[in-house]
Every structure is written in C-alpha cells, then in structure tokens.
C-alpha cells in the first residue's frame, strides 16, 4: 500500500475521483467533447500556473501575473495582422525582459516579492489601460482564422492551445529537474540560508524564476486573447487566484522547495473539472468564485500541514518526541 502514500498518486486519485463523481452526476460530462472543452479552458490557467509554480518553488510569489497577461493579450491582438508567431513573440519578449528586471530588483534589494510585485501588479494593470486606450480590442475580421486555428480539435481531445499547455508543463518540468538553474531554484526555495552558505548564487535563480513567471503569464494571456478574438485591459483579474489554487492542489508549496509540474497539471485539471461540472449544471457565475475560494482555503490548510510551515514543524517535533518516548 506504499504507493498510495505518494503525494502525486494521492492527487491523481483525487482528480480521478472528482472526474468520476462529475461524470456520474452531471449529464454529458463524460464525453470526449467535454474532455476537449475542459482541456481547452485549462490552457490559460495551466500555463500561468506553470510559471507561478516555478516562482513558488523558489519561495517567492509574483502577484503581477494577471496584469502581465492582460497587457500581453492586448499586444497580441494588436499585432495579430503579422501572424500568430509574431503576435505571441511581441507579447512574450517584453514580458520576459520585465520579469528579468523585476527578479533582479527583488534579488538586489532583498525585498519581499509580495511587496514589490504588489506595486507592479497595480502598475501593469494601469499600463494595460494605457496601451489599449481603455477600450476592448478585437481581432480584425481577416484575422479571425487565428482564433479558429488555435481552438481546432485534434487528437480526439486536444487543441493547439491545450497542446501548448502540455508542452510548457513538460518542458518546465524537465528543465527544473535536469538543469543547473532548475536545481538552484529548488535550493533557494527549500532553504535560502543554507543554500547561500553552500555557495548557490542567489540572484540568478530569482531572475530566472521571475522571467519564467512573467513570460509564461504573457504567453497564456496572448494565446487566450487570440483564441477569444478580443482583449480587454481589465481582463485576467482572477487568473492569479485560479493559478495559485491549481498549484496548491498539485502539491506545490507556498513555502518553497516543493512541487512538480506533473502536480501542477493534475491541479489545473482537478480545478477545471470541478468548475466545468458546475457550469454544466447551470450554476451561476458566482458559484465558480465560491468554489475556487473554498478549494484555495482548503488546500492552504493542506499546505500548512505538508509544507515547511511553522505548523508542519510543530507537528514533526511532536511526532519525533512521541516516538522517542515510545
């Protein structure tokens, strides 16, 4: 029964259980058409969550991802006349540069990323309103083919945008595990002081993690806006909430040093399966808010017990003491 104790196995079982429960209770839930729809709606949150998870593993948090996604969506729609690749590149490259600058500033100032990114979270939202002139931008009629192409159904349940999500998660997982920068991110996230004492550079992993979170947020925003055919400066306000929730469900810890991209994928799918089930039963819009809030708080509790939190340490100390007595 040891296999049941592995966190990833437990979380996969949770996903399977949620899916099965929905498939039994909600009509038309278990179809391949709905599986396609769930994956399709996961793309945005999944790609943002991948970047945010890298951040969380480094023990930091980039609150500005939603605002960056909104800016990127606007830029991508503006540049859509030059083709998908150019439009996405125009959105992602400035975001990566912004992420590098942000990571560098946070590392050099040794400031809490929550505080710093709170400012950029507000500032980038303002920038979104400025570059769009406070209007909703829509794809030109001649470019609507882009929107169709991104959501075209292929391989039974996938679409180009959900395939991008899977590719991003796989790539991020491999890079985290097998590259020097990836290991450094885990090291500074798991034990900042010990890693410094052991000679791990402190600036580079922070810069990388913020560049990744901003770049992937931009990629997600650009793809979602191109797919939806429009971008509004006030968009993607709730994506931070959804992405953090998904990462927490997937076992990424807010205390750093813990988590995997497979976990993030499982987390995103679990969240979207639940939300899609709610939607199919005809629940109104606020139900999604309610559900996401509840799930987030529940998994915060799980993270409190599992991660490197004060509560977890107290629990560990107690169990060691009781074992010593026995």
């Amino acid at each position, binding site marked *: 029964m040891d296999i049941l104790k592995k966190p990833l196995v437990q979380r996969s079982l949770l996903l399977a259980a949620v899916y099965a429960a929905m498939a039994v209770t909600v009509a038309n839930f278990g179809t391949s058409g709905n599986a396609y729809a769930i994956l399709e709606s996961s793309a945005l949150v999944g790609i943002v969550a991948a970047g945010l998870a890298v951040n969380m593993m480094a023990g930091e948090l980039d609150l500005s991802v939603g605002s960056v996604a909104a800016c990127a969506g606007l830029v991508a729609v503006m540049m859509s006349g030059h083709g998908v690749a150019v439009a996405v590149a125009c959105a992602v490259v400035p975001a990566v540069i912004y992420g590098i600058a942000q990571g560098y500033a946070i590392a050099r100032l040794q400031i809490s990323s929550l505080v710093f990114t709170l400012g950029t979270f*507000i500032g980038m939202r303002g920038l979104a309103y400025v570059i769009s002139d406070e209007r909703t931008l829509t794809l030109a009629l001649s470019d609507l083919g882009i929107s169709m192409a991104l959501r075209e159904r292929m391989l039974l349940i996938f679409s180009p945008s959900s395939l991008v999500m899977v590719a991003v998660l796989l790539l991020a997982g491999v890079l985290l595990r097998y590259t020097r920068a990836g290991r450094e991110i885990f090291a500074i996230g798991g034990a900042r002081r010990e890693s410094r004492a052991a000679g791990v550079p402190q600036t580079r992993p922070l810069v990388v993690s913020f560049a990744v979170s901003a770049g992937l947020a931009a990629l997600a925003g650009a793809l979602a806006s191109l797919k939806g055919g429009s971008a509004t400066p006030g968009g993607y306000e709730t994506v931070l909430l959804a992405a*953090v929730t998904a990462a927490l469900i997937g076992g990424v810890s807010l205390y*750093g040093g813990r988590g995997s991209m497979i976990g993030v994928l499982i987390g995103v799918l679990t969240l979207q399966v639940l939300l899609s089930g709610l939607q199919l039963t005809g629940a109104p819009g606020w139900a999604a808010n309610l559900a996401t809030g509840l799930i987030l708080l529940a998994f915060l509790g799980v993270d409190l017990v599992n991660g490197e939190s004060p509560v977890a340490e107290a629990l560990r100390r107690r169990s060691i003491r009781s074992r010593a007595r026995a």
Partner: protein
Amino acid sequence: MSDTAIPAGPLRSPAAAALARAVLAAGLVLTLAALGGYFNPAFLSPENGLAILRAAAMSGIVAMGATFITLSGRFFSLALGQTAMFAGVLMAVLMAWGLPFGLALAAMLAVIVCLGAVQGAIISMGANPIITTLGAGALLAGLAGLFTGGRNVAIDSAALAWIGNGRILGVPTQTWAFVAAVAVAWWVLNKTRFGRETIFLGANRATAGASGIGVTKVTVLVFVIASLAAAMMGVFEAAQFSKARVAGFGAVDFDVIAAVLIGGTAIQGGRGSPLRTALGAVFIATLQNYMLLLAWSSGVRTLVTGVFIVLIVAGFHVAARRKGA
C-alpha cells in the same frame, strides 16, 4: 516568504526621525496642493478640498484597519474590498428581510468579526496572508452572489440615507468618521497594551513570541479590526447610494495598500503610524483628484499610483537597510 532580516532601529531619537518623516509627508501634500493650485485654480477651491477629503475618507477608513495588519508584520489583506462589499450586501439583505437598521447592523458586524477572526487564525498558523485573503475575498464575492443572485440590493432607510449624505457643520459624515477612525487607531496603537504588542510582533515575531506575547491573539485581532474598518466603509457606500452594490470594489484594495505604503509604514512591520497612513490616503486622493482635473485617463492614474508604490517601497526599504548597516 524570503525572510529578510529586520534591521535594528536607529539609535538616535526615533521620535525625532518619525516627526521628520511626518513633516516630509505633510510637505509633499502641501507642495502638491500648491503646484496644483498654480496650474489649475479650481483645484484649490474649498469645495474641491472637501471632495478630496471625502474621497480620502472612504479608502482612508479601511487603510486605518489595514495599518494594523501591516504593522503586525502580516503584509496586507486582499479581501478588504470584498469585505466592504459583503458587509453592505449582508446589511441590505437583512434589512430587506424586515430587520430594523440597528439590528441588521449588529448582526452584520458579528458576521464580519467572525470572518476576520477566521482569516487571522489561519494566517497566525503561518499561512501566506496575501493568498489566504485572496481566497477569502473570492469566497465573499461568491457568498454575496449567493445571497443576492448578483443583483444590487436597494435599501430604504432614512437613518442610513443621512449617514450616507448628511453633513455636520458643512463637512460630510464620511470625513468625520475618517477623523474619528484616525484618532481611535492612533490611541489604540500608542496607548493600549494591544497596540504596543502589535508593533512588537511586527518588529520581531520570534522575540515577541518568546517574550510571551500571544501571537495568535494579536494576529486574529488585527484582522478583525481591518475587517471592521472595511465593513464601516461598506455601510457608508451602501448608505450613500441607498443600495448595496455587488461590484465596483475592485480598486479599494489598491487604494488602501497605496495609502499605507506611501504613508511610509514599513512593509516588514514594526514601524509606522496611522497618522502617516492618513496622510498617505489624503496624498493619494489629492494625486487622483489632480490627475482627474487634468483629465488624465484612469489607466494613466492607475499606472502612476503603481509606479509611486514601487518607488516609495523600494526607497523606504533601501533607507531602512542603510540605517541598519
């Protein structure tokens, strides 16, 4: 997250330094007012002054509560805007059920106290305050939808209409409430045991815990206070328009955070004062009002506010480290 060491405070007279900073902030507000008046005479009219104070009052009241959270070293709450919204909605729904105003207000406040206490309890166990309150905010938005079906709720009450639109000595009630909130916050932080414990906790959590301060108690209380301040704003908002709105509170958290940080309350906790937050709120309202008179778009205004926050936070952070080194 990353635990930056809190530098030792300056050895020479902290009171003088605090006074210097307050004078600096007041000077900034006055300079801005003088410049604004020079370029645009309408800016300095008494009516515009009252309008600024009224605008500052709404986010300023909430910022008073938020100052407690920041001082205690728990950064910020992103649920305060939704708490304000939920408070207004809950009161309106209770009154629509036929409860008299006083009873509805009391019942609503009881619920808000519980909500703040639960958030504080979770956070005192070591949960990330920003994420906890983000989740709580989503939950409150959902609950408000559950109660109202997503529609605004009309309120019919003469008392409430007066609270929203009345004037005492020609000054709006909101402004009086703001002044009262500042006075109470200053008194609690400087003259009560709980206030000193809050600042001690923010200055050094480990030492505070080791010296017998109830970390959980203080954390729960600061979130209860912040939630109550948000509820106060919710009541004023609902009273002003005689209806509880279920949307439109998105910018509250931004304005509150801006007021606290621009007032110069140290984000790591332990240093700051409600008086400076009040000045910060007035400064933000003045800036917003001035940009509005220049007919700058809301996007530019948000961008400028964000840039201000980043610069000021980074500036204070660097200054604090210099002094500590």
